[in-house]
């Protein structure tokens, strides 16, 4: 099959330039409104529920979920739905347990909440370990994905693509802070939802606007197995472990949690999750249609011909049903998707470095506004440089597991301490600290010993630890450590302060 994919053409470059111009325009506008730390990290807490819902969706729907899940569906049918569902079900948990307390108890990072009634320094150091680990692994996955994708889509060399993504993203975050990041995420979410909807409509138009006719055509072409669970889930324990990490990891991702500080109050935070989940769920349902569309219209052989992992299924489908203009549009959307996610990650990493570590650990909470603002910008530059270095270092390596790793650390290191600090009055500093450190270390250690690293990457015949995702072990471990350590040495003062935290959790800042 011949395709314009990978050959820069006027239409692709045109869409690409339109997006860059639009987002730089937003940055210039946002930079005039970014004069304080509150504006830099939290957009002045003036984002509306619908805006934040779109931005949350823009932060969460990565290129990996757009191109990866469409590809997975195109190659294996039903199995893609397992991931779609897994990535969605964490959102109700975010709404029921996390969003409102977070908004009322914190300022910029989730560590604000855990440290609220505990000792600042130990809690923030431990929370930073977990946060930075999540952000780093997620950044590696995004940057390597970006390099490969842009090389495939535009024919630009890998290293150049990584540097372009790092530099453009740095521009947004450094000058426009959270205001620019929010609007880039909103624009990206609208483009992605719009692009995927148009694509799905064009596909469904060929099947009488009935998805079932499309699925039927797929099973006629490749057999009824495409409608049934396949090889993705073989070991039940592995399936539950992955499910647990996807579900609880969503509620522990620092860049997602940070978005709840951009809204004015808890009620807006709650409503914004409802919007986000509606958009994300709709998007995953569309992705399922696109995957089957690519399977039937483009064919598996043609898709794997461009990329063995199936990542080019959606762009090829765009070309198949809409010609080069639609291909160019979808390629530009994929690029915007990467930029928005990387910008969100960088901003949350910068908040951890400057707000948690510099201001509250090194300076003991005594840093004036000017210093906080400056350190935030220095941290942003450091993280952008780090993301470029990581992207180039991991060139050509299999980093698909790193998204799973980031979710597993978020679920094991961040989620237990966060949820216990909100619900359990007897949690102590030592308990929270031990839980976050052990959650991070045990997850990294068990992934290193898992079949993912030992068998797939190091090519050993077997692995020491049987599960591909360690969540089933590390999440309960982290809860047990937090509870055990806290009960072993109760701290009455920290327990007394729970009442203060509870008042503020419900009533907000009085």
């Amino acid at each position, binding site marked *: 099959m011949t395709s314009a994919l990978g050959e820069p053409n006027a239409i692709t470059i045109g869409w690409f330039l339109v997006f860059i111009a639009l987002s730089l325009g937003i940055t210039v506008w946002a930079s005039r409104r970014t004069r304080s730390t509150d504006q830099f990290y939290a957009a002045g807490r003036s984002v509306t529920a619908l805006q934040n819902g779109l931005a949350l969706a823009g932060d969460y729907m990565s290129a990996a979920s757009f191109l990866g899940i469409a590809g997975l569906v195109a190659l294996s049918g*039903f199995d893609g*739905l*397992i991931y*779609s*569902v*897994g990535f*969605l*079900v964490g*959102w*109700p*948990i975010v*709404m*029921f*347990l996390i969003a409102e307390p977070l908004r009322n108890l914190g300022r910029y990072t989730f560590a604000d909440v855990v440290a609220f009634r505990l000792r600042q320094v130990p809690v923030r150091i431990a929370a930073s370990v977990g946060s930075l680990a999540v952000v780093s692994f997620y950044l590696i996955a995004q940057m390597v994905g970006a390099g490969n994708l842009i090389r495939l889509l535009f024919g630009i060399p890998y290293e150049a693509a990584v540097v372009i993504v790092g530099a453009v993203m740095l521009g947004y975050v450094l000058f426009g802070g959270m205001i620019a990041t929010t609007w880039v995420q909103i624009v990206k979410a609208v483009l992605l939802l719009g692009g995927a909807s148009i694509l799905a409509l064009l596909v469904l138009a060929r099947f009488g606007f009935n*998805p*079932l*006719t*499309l*699925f*039927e*055509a797929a*099973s006629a072409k490749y057999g*009824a*197995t495409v*409608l*049934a*669970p396949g090889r993705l*889930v073989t*070991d*039940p324990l592995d*399936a*539950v472990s992955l*499910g647990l990490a996807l*579900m609880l990891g969503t509620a522990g991702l620092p860049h997602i949690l940070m978005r709840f500080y951009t809204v004015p109050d808890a*009620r807006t935070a*709650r*409503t914004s*999750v*409802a919007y986000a*989940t*509606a958009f994300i*769920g709709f998007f*995953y*349902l569309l992705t399922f249609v696109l995957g089957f569309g690519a399977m039937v219209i483009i064919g598996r052989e043609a898709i794997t011909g461009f990329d063995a992992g199936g990542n080019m299924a959606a762009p090829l489908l765009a070309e198949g049903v809409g010609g080069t203009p639609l291909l160019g549009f979808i390629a530009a959307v994929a690029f915007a998707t990467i930029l928005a996610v990387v910008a969100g990650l960088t901003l949350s990493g910068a908040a951890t470095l400057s707000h948690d570590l510099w201001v509250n650990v090194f300076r003991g909470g005594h840093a004036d506004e000017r210093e906080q603002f400056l350190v935030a910008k220095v941290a942003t530059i450091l993280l952008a440089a780090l993301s470029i270095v990581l992207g180039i270092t991991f060139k050509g390596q299999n980093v698909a597991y790193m998204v799973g790793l980031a979710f597993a650390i978020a679920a094991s290191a961040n989620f237990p301490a966060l949820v216990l600090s909100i*619900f359990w009055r007897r949690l102590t500093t030592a308990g929270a600290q031990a839980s976050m450190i052990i959650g991070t270390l045990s997850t990294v250690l068990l992934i290193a010993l898992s079949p993912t690293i030992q068998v797939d990457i190091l090519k050993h015949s077997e692995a020491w630890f049987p599960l591909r995702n360690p969540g089933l072990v590390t999440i309960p471990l982290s809860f047990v450590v937090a509870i055990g350590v806290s009960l072993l040495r109760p701290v009455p003062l920290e327990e007394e302060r729970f*009442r203060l935290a*509870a*008042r503020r*959790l*419900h*009533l907000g800042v*009085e």
Partner: protein
Amino acid sequence: MTHAASHTHPDAPLDALAAARWRVAIGLTVAMMVVYFGFILLVAFDKPLLGTVLTAGLSLGMLLGALVILIAWLLMWIYVRWANAHYDTAIEGMRR
């Protein structure tokens, strides 16, 4: 604070509201987990069942997967409705 004194404590209405809020939140969380892990365990343990074709182009597994997404929306709708109607009103009353 002892339990016996709680009904006279000025925070007693807030404590009651907080307890109600967590009952709703935890109940809905458990419901979501049961639905999701039920789906995952079916995928893991009974693939042929989920592969059952209900009508041309639709398998039981696809229907259940879409239902999990719909149920997630439904549970959130229940929570938002409850929180907007009861919780927010009560909090507003306490602020005054």
